[in-house]
């Protein structure tokens, strides 16, 4: 087993990985940018290495610096987490060249699955269902028009190297096509240094359902069932659950999707933890989307229902251990739901809200799991993803899990910046959500329909006024309408925008 592992990431996932390392009695090495010296992942690490300035391109994406850290600290493996270099084949190769273990699949597999068009070709080749569209990147508007006509509008433009919705555009008519193509390409260029974009038929009201696979280097491979990830904003997941309400309601569907996922993974010579993403239409037909050759943000919901620690298994597999699991060993118990706590305002176009966290109160009690990368008094940097924490619950049934998540969100309080915590409480009250009628456009529709305000007690206004009056008497000598330069001002400013809604 490894003696020391470098975690080439930041935030909640770096913390998650370090916890696994600590439990396995392996030393952890953190890397950090100027913006992250005081970040939780540095505080939790056994060792730490400074990469460079805040921008990812000068820190977390600097392969040379990370390898420097490996040499200086004598790490024998690297866990890339998700994002950053986690799906970068060059990085995986550089690790091999350096003689240290990259905790993930082979560089070849990453490269093959990294290009959506290549992955798509492969899926077609082995007979896995895919959404109709181009098999290679398109840049010429004329060619694009032709293809779009062929598959029929609406179509979806996607970055070949992409992920997380960057470089993605919905196009409903030909008039929009050229502009959308340009935007998608430039966004893809910025995000992935690769402007290649392809076109596919847009499936209406689709579900996003993915299968977790786990394989070792000795040819053993299992799937751990599905995750329903249909709740998204700006093509990014905000809420996930396992099992999927749709899949669990359809006998044989999990097995069918699992088999499709395993055949694709096997064909790619896959090992370590990976996720095969499918688009599922309203009739339950599923299409291969792409494979994520890394740990998934939402892996906790799978851990909660299967009882396996995916990060520890990743590390064991990378160390060459054999996966002592066969498909029939995998059992699913209960229901898990995860909410991604973002520093953003759902009621104001999901505008990001970086800044100082004034107060953080964390939910506890039965069936709660919190993977957080933040703490009170910490400045949330503007350079990185707005994900602050992942709040997951487990319950015996979906109903129990929903009820528990509502309870838990009520115990969760963050001030200083705006978060989407209260937004989840509104979603959990929505009848469509409770009925399990989900699709990737759910949240946009939900917001258009105008989310109801939480119920207000008869005493509400009087109480709010009284407590304010007493608070201002007790805590501040400053007149009530005067300004403040407290660390809370960011939250207030964002709050004001909402207050005026």
């Amino acid at each position, binding site marked *: 087993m490894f003696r020391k592992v470098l975690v080439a990431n930041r935030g909640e996932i770096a913390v998650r990985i370090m916890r696994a390392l600590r439990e396995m009695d392996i030393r952890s090495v953190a890397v950090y940018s100027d913006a992250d010296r005081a970040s939780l992942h540095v505080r939790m690490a056994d060792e730490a290495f400074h990469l460079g300035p805040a921008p990812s391109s000068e820190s977390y994406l600097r392969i040379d610096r990370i390898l420097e850290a490996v040499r200086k600290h004598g790490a024998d493996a690297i866990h890339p987490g998700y994002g950053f270099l986690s799906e970068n084949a060059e990085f995986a190769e550089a690790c091999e060249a350096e003689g240290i273990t990259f905790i993930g699949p082979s560089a070849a597999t990453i490269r093959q699955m990294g290009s959506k068009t290549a992955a798509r070709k492969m899926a077609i080749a082995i007979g896995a269902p895919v959404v109709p569209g181009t098999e290679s990147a398109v840049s010429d508007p004329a060619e694009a028009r032709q293809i779009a006509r062929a598959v029929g509008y609406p179509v979806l433009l996607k970055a070949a190297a992409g992920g997380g919705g*960057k470089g993605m555009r919905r196009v409903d008519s030909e008039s929009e096509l050229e502009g959308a193509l340009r935007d998608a390409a430039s*966004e893809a260029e910025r995000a992935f240094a690769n402007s290649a974009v392809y076109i596919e038929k847009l499936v209406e009201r689709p579900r996003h359902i993915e299968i977790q696979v786990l394989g070792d280097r000795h040819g053993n491979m299992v799937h751990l069932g599905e995750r329903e990830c249909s709740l998204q904003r700006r093509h990014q997941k905000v809420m996930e659950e396992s099992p999927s309400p749709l899949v669990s309601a359809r006998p044989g569907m999990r097995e069918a999707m699992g088999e499709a996922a395993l055949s694709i993974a096997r064909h790619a010579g896959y090992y370590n933890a990976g996720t095969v993403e499918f688009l599922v239409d309203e009739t339950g037909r599923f299409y291969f989307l792409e494979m994520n050759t890394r740990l998934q943000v939402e892996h906790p919901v799978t851990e909660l229902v299967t009882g396996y620690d995916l990060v520890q298994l990743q590390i064991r597999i990378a160390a060459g251990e054999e996966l002592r699991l066969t498909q029939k060993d995998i059992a699913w118990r209960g229901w898990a739901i995860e909410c991604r706590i973002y*520093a*953003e305002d759902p009621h104001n*176009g*999901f*505008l*990001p809200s*970086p*800044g100082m966290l*004034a*107060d953080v109160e964390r939910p506890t009690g039965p069936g709660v799991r919190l993977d957080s990368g933040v703490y009170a008094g910490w400045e949330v940097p*503007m*350079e*990185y*993803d*707005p994900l602050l924490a992942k709040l997951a619950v487990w319950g015996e049934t979906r109903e129990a899990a929903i009820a528990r998540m509502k309870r838990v*969100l*009520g115990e969760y*309080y963050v*001030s200083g910046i705006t978060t989407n*915590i*209260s937004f989840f409480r509104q979603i959990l009250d929505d009848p469509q959500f409770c009925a399990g009628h989900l699709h990737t456009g759910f949240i946009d529709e939900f917001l258009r329909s105008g989310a109801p*305000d*939480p119920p207000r*007690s*008869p*005493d*509400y*206004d*009087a*109480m*709010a*006024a*009284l*407590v*304010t*009056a*007493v*608070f*201002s008497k*007790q*805590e*501040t000598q400053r007149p*009530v*309408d005067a*300004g*403040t330069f*407290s660390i*809370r*001002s*960011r*939250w*207030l*400013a*964002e*709050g*004001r925008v*909402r*207050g005026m809604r």
Partner: protein
Amino acid sequence: MKLQVSVDDRPAELSFEEASAEWRFDYRPQDGLARSGTASLVRAEPGIYSVLIEGLAYEVRVVAGPDGYYVDIGGRRSVVKVIDPRALSSTGPGQGSQGRQTVTAPMPGKVVRVLIAEGDEVAAGAGLIVVEAMKMQNELKSPKAGRIVQLKAQVGATVKLGELLAVVE
């Protein structure tokens, strides 16, 4: 003690006094029913109060802000102000579609693109400046048809929330 207050812009008059570890209060909104009674109010943590009114228990959180206090009761947030007469008369910039209009940063972040130059004529809704934070790009559009009379935004510059980026006239 008597205060003129507003809760989410609903004005009211609040009278309150401490009475043996409790607070007697009388709340009279301009419209809606008046509410008076006695509340047990304990400061559990900074800005967090445990309130009991007629046997009902509430957890009330409050933080001071530039334009009032932000109060959270059971996940519901409100802005509570003590009304400042001057505030009622004033109308800030950026109202209506006449005259000068300012374009300000909707979030803290970095200016990644400036699509116009000072003196340019722009149409209403034309893209002017792109600000990026937390990997989200936000294109700021022109609030009106007119000319860019002032351009403060510079590519690569870090901007604060509400910072002036351009003026259209």
